[in-house]
């Protein structure tokens, strides 16, 4: 749906900051999250997990557990169907191991019992005989010939012969003559980088409650970013028809991409079917870290050439990503995003996905992009240092703009990168003096944004209020944004609209809440559904007035006679039309269904002032500013919230967060004490500067905003630390021991 460029729109409600409709529920403890519901006769299930990084499962003896008083059902991998589709089959094997445990924490069996204590005790009574196999958790080691083989026969045709069996996927993007480009450079810098796997770190562990009736109808309540995805996957794993499985999304306690797949939901369903009782599963934090989430771990080489006046002549990157024990295409995103901020004559990126004995990668906010852009932005920064150039000037000089052939192929339409860079340069933050020992880091960031399958119903109630039914879990205030767009389009007050998130039996399919798609796509569908309702309301007014439908127009929340009939009848408000709807043809509703495109790419620039304690290597963030093109900011509070929250997740990634594996291949820090996410006292205020360059693909010009903000912090901080300590840092996180080692080695 194209931007409404034909009218110079003065928004009346979009762009304001009203209270979110679910606010009271969430500040009073009333909101119900995944673990907050119970059912009569409910059982509690617990999952037994592999203590080995890689092991053949020789046998599982569940007889003793099954004989325990209070144990109602035990399942293993044999109880799950293996779908033909490779992607679904991987999910099934990840949900419950079959012949091999592929990582520390891989589920091998589950028990449903009348109490959590009995379920826990029964886990200890299950006897699993393992044959421990050699393991590999490092991406570079897994690419070596002779590395332990995680899975065989999974390489796609794109993988050249002769690579390690663990390489499953290869991709390449770019254009131009690299050799000629590098020949034009005055300086070339080539460096290698590594980034640790990090976890989304949502505060709410995965939780679900399943029930299955004897006639095969099932209900599932769970915290998820997409109830329709859960239905699709679980129906396939259960051998059920979609209509017989109703999935209701609870309030969701954070996801950031990590709740875009299933882990425990099929287990609860299979146990519920087996026992005939409702089954609840709640993960512990240890399980969340060991068996869900993390990002890819990466190893990246970047080579960039630059003239002495700051023009990038060529850029090349080789990206090695591991998405854990299953094939994963995230490296494509990295290879596409790496150089997206630059208008380049010669660019090439190559990516490989590599299997390791780690948990299956799940999306995390702009999946694949932060790592690649960190590596590129680090080299750009080093070139700026060497050539004594201003890092923002160099980015302005090379910035992608409308008409640029992007490094991954498409030609950009209206994009906000230059405006964002110029806003950063003009901001007082960039001009503020630094004290001795302090440094400033800069980085660009980019994300594609997505649209996708979306379905919205909008019901006009007879009292003049409106209900919007959408299908995407509200992960950060989206019900407020959707209500604002419905109110704007209909011309009624925000508080006359109530937006609800429907279960899978109540609405058509909606893609998951991901790709920064909800405010864009659901907003677009809501506007279109409102327009559909307006057409119908105009027709009702025309009927009442006895004139043609086309002779009625909608403005300011009412139907008006138009053209030759203008002024002939007093306008009828939405409430007046709704009040008599039963006499004019029945209830009034608008609908829209779309597979939306035109999401519009998003760019951001971050500035970070920091200092490093030379005694300990600890980095302190002193000042942090985020500049981002949001298209039209529908509810600016929640746009700022995305920018601030994403930046802080990126700060955690840059400074502290990492999956640490021991020599035994076991995760050594599966808890918030040892996997340290940023806390309030670590941080300054995060200044969010919103730029509004309308997205040509949305009627109000909206772009997704949620993912881009996690991209720049990795390089912004690494560039700041590198400048502060006088050593180019090449590995994340910049934990105090690593920085201290670099200082001492310098």
């Amino acid at each position, binding site marked *: 749906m194209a931007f409404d460029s034909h009218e110079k729109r003065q928004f009346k409600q979009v762009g304001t*900051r009203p*209270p*979110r409709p*679910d*606010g*009271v*529920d*969430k*500040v*009073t*403890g*009333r*909101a*119900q*999250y995944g*673990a*907050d519901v*119970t059912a009569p006769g409910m059982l509690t299930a617990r999952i037994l997990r592999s203590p080995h990084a890689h092991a053949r499962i020789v046998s599982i003896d569940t007889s003793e557990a099954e004989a325990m008083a209070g144990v109602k059902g035990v399942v293993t991998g044999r109880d799950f169907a293996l779908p033909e589709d490779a992607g679904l089959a991987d999910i099934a094997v990840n949900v419950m191991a079959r012949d091999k445990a592929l990582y520390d924490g891989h589920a091998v069996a589950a028990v449903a019992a009348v109490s959590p*204590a009995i379920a826990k005790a029964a886990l200890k009574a299950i006897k699993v005989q393992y044959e421990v196999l050699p393991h590999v958790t490092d991406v570079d080691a897994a690419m070596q010939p002779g590395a332990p083989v995680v899975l065989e026969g999974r390489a796609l045709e794109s993988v050249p012969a002769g690579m390690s069996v663990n390489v499953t996927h290869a991709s390449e993007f770019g254009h131009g003559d690299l050799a000629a480009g590098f020949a034009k450079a005055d300086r070339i810098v080539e460096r290698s980088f590594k980034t640790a796997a990090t976890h*989304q*770190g*949502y*505060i*709410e*562990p995965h939780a679900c409650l399943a029930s299955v009736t004897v006639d095969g109808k099932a209900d599932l309540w769970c915290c998820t970013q997409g109830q329709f995805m859960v239905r699709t996957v679980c129906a396939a794993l259960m051998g059920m028809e979609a209509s017989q499985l109703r999935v209701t999304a609870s*309030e*969701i*306690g*954070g*996801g*950031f991409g990590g709740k875009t797949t299933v882990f425990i939901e099929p287990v609860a369903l299979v146990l519920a079917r087996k026992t005939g009782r409702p089954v609840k599963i*709640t993960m*512990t*934090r240890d399980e969340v870290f060991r068996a869900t989430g993390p990002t890819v771990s990466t190893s990246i080489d970047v080579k960039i050439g630059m003239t002495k006046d700051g023009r990038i002549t060529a850029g090349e990157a080789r990206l090695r990503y591991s998405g854990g024990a299953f094939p994963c295409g995230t490296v494509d995103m990295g290879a596409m995003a790496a150089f997206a901020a630059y208008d380049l004559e010669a660019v090439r990126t190559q990516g490989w996905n590599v299997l390791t004995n780690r948990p299956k990668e799940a999306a995390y906010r702009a999946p694949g992009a932060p790592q690649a852009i960190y590596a590129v932005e680090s080299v750009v920064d080093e070139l700026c240092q060497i050539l004594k150039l201003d890092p923002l000037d160099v980015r302005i000089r090379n910035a992608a703009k409308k008409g640029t052939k992007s490094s991954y192929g498409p030609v950009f339409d209206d994009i906000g990168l230059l405006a964002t860079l110029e806003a950063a340069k003009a901001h007082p933050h960039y001009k503020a003096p630094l004290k001795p020992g302090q440094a400033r880091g800069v980085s660009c960031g980019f994300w594609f944004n997505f649209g996708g399958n979306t379905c919205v119903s909008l019901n006009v109630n007879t009292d003049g209020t409106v209900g919007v039914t959408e299908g995407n879990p509200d*992960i*950060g*205030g989206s019900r407020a944004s959707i209500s604002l767009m419905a109110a704007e389009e209909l011309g009624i007050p925000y508080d006359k609209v109530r937006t609800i998130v429907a279960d899978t039996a109540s609405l058509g399919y909606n893609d998951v809440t991901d790709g920064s798609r909800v405010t864009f796509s659901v907003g677009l569908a809501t506007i279109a559904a409102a327009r559909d309702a307006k057409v119908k309301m105009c027709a009702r007014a025309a009927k009442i007035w006895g004139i043609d439908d086309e002779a009625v127009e909608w403005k300011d929340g009412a139907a008006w006679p138009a053209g030759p009939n203008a002024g002939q009848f007093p306008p009828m408000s939405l409430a007046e039309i709704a009040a008599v709807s039963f006499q004019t043809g029945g209830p009034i509703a608008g609908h829209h269904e779309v597979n939306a495109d035109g999401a519009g790419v998003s760019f951001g620039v971050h500035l970070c002032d920091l200092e490093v304690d030379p005694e300990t290597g600890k980095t302190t963030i002193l000042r942090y500013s985020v500049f981002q093109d949001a298209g039209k900011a529908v509810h600016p*509070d*929640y746009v*700022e*919230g995305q920018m*601030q*929250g*994403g*930046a*802080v*997740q990126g700060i955690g990634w840059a400074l502290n967060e990492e999956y640490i594996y021991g020599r035994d291949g076991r995760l050594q820090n599966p*808890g*918030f*004490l040892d996997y340290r*996410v*940023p*806390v*309030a*006292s*670590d*941080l300054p*205020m*995060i200044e969010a500067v919103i730029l509004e360059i309308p997205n040509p693909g949305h009627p109000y010009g909206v772009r997704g905003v949620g993912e881009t903000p996690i991209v720049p912090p990795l390089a912004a901080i690494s560039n700041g630390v590198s400048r502060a300590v006088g050593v180019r840092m090449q590995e994340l996180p910049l934990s105090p021991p690593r920085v201290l080692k670099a200082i001492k080695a310098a």
Partner: protein
Amino acid sequence: MSSISVSTTVNGDPVDFVCTPDESLLDALRNRMGLTGAKEGCGTGDCGACSVLLNGRLVCSCLVLAAEAEGAEIATVEGMAGPEGLHPLQRAFIDHAALQCGVCTPGILVAAKALLEKNPDPSDEEVRYWLAGNLCRCTGYDKIVRAVQAAAAEMRSA
């Protein structure tokens, strides 16, 4: 394991419940009393999502045994709003968009209320250190600090 009978006061109301000797106060609140406002984010006292007041002291209810609540006064997020409406902190969190997913919000509200009872005029740094035991993964804390300060200002002028 034999059950233990416990008599407490929860949000001002007398409450009797039975629990097992190894049961946490959080589990008793959630599963025996139906008070699911306090959340289990970690079960190890690292995230603060289960914060409640026990005899006026801010605790992680996942680290307190339910049996320890005998004779105690417990305050949870469910007791913050009165018949007259929301607590100033609750209003400020909505007005300042200090929550996104909202799962850490009950614990942060309970913790912030405890702070303002001790220190009605905290600096931003004092707010940040007091709330350092309450993880929020969505907001980056900026709007939380602003909301606590706004509520503190309102409560001081009341």
